[in-house]
């Protein structure tokens, strides 16, 4: 269950996408998400689909890995679909008791579902092709201007990279504790929601204790190695834009323009 989260699970492969500067990939993900929400015509969705398919192809990451991330949002997705389906006003298609399903409802539900799925896959592409460290480096650099308004950019980036490093360790530990508790007769599966939540306590308490101990140890180890914030720090692998990064930015711009046009044309066609 817990291990389905693809976040922070880098898939090593030798693709152009892997080699791109993380800032480009961050920008790309942003552009993609914006395009999903800004352009709402069927034509635009086709465009987004093509773009996503091309990117996945280039990334050389098996589709299986991209789809893994979806499992964790199935519940959220069902919820949005159901809400949109029943709570949108418009021309009624059929009724289920006091609930009415409308044409507009079906349309929004479908688009909402597509959007969510693409959103997750789009961000998975980024996390699968970028090492956590590159990712946080990219974020740190991209957010640097915020440092001027006293946003602790370096600290946020450091926190993220540590979180990413410890996610797999903590997941493994969760698994271990779970098995240990199950061996003593604990039951994490049966019962209602409340019972299940209660059953989680013997899992969460040791997990929290160990997480705090790890945090304490890690803070000490970092201090012992001379860590004192971002000031006066040099970088072993500084980020530098290369030719391919510039090309990628251009392609992104092209995508945005094309999407805008396609959306417009689609819109006009709809009017006629």
């Amino acid at each position, binding site marked *: 269950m817990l291990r389905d989260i693809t976040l922070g699970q*880098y898939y090593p492969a030798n693709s152009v996408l892997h080699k791109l500067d993380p800032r480009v990939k961050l920008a790309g993900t942003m552009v993609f998400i914006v395009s999903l929400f800004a352009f709402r015509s069927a034509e635009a969705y086709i465009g987004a689909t093509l773009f996503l398919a091309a990117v996945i192809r280039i990334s050389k990451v098996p589709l299986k890995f991209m789809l893994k991330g979806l499992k964790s949002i199935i519940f959220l997705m069902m919820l949005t679909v159901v809400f949109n389906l029943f709570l949108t006003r418009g021309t009624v298609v059929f009724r289920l008791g006091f609930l009415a399903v409308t044409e507009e409802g079906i349309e929004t539900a479908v688009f909402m579902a597509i959007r969510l799925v693409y959103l997750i896959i789009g961000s998975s592409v980024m996390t699968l092709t970028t*090492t*956590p*460290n590159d990712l946080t480096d990219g974020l740190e650099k991209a957010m640097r201007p915020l440092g001027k308004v006293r946003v602790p950019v370096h600290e946020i980036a450091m926190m993220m*990279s*540590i979180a*990413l*490093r410890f996610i*797999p*360790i903590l997941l493994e530990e969760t698994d271990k504790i779970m098995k240990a508790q199950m061996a003593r007769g604990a039951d994490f599966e049966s019962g209602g929601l409340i019972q299940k939540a209660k059953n989680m306590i013997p899992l969460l308490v040791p997990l929290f204790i160990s997480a705090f*101990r*790890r945090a304490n*140890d*890690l803070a*000490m*180890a*970092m*201090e*012992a*190695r*001379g*860590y*004192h914030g971002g000031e*006066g*720090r*040099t*970088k*072993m*692998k*500084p980020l530098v834009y290369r030719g391919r990064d510039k090309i990628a930015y251009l392609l992104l711009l092209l995508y945005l323009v094309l999407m805008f046009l396609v959306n417009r044309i689609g819109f006009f066609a709809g009017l006629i």
Partner: protein
Amino acid sequence: MGIIKARHVAFDYLRMDEEGQVESRSRAVDDVDLDVEAGDFVAILGHNGSGKSTLAKHINAILLPTEGTVFVDGKDTQDESKLWEIRQSAGMVFQNPDNQIIGTIVDEDVGFGPENMGVPQDEIWQRVEESLKAVGMWEYRSHSPNKLSGGQKQRVAIAGVVAMRPKCIVLDEPTAMLDPNGRQEVIRTVRELNRREHVTVLLITHYMEEVIHADKVIVMDQGKIVMQGTPREVFSHVGELKRFRLDVPQATLVAYELQKAGIALPDGILSNEELIGALEAYRKKRQNK
């Protein structure tokens, strides 16, 4: 002059109540004098809770003494302006390898210390290469630490410290969580650093076989240093060591029991080979009589 010089060091762990008032204090290190010469390999022994870790944390100014002074490479650890220099001169390796590796890739982790020190980029790479080679982990430079064995992780942690070019490395039970193979790997690495690069080593451990090669052994009990000397000197006092709830090497113990049973063997036997030699010498002497 010695690289570590501690005088009358005492440390209290304080327990605060909700208002931030001191509720109780417990003395973990009590009036310790410690002198370590540059290039030495010093082992520190002691039962659980005897204050070894607490003392170790004084050496790179993670803890500051409640009483007394600690000098590292001529710098007072209380002097805040020298804090980063001290942390650079005295590196520290901890027990749990998972909790001290910061990078998500081996080479990035080794570069973490030099990055903090503001070392220029080219030199960082040079240091990373040197230190990974020194611990024999260069081939693993682009691996994720999560996929390494315990002993390998610990060697990466050591490389991370070596990359800061410290004069002295303090290792707090670096082998406690490892299997026998991993333990050997790590100890061999540490001994080589000591011999080849003349890095001063302070090794805290519960394993006697890691102690017998040290230049000096220090025994702690209830926050105090209760014995010190060469391994041979310290291990010739088996009775006393037992009083401090410490083990002795197997060969030493056998020799001690034989002595008690009336067989005249020399004091301070450390290894099986020595024991065999001594027993043979003893037999010859008996036959000659």
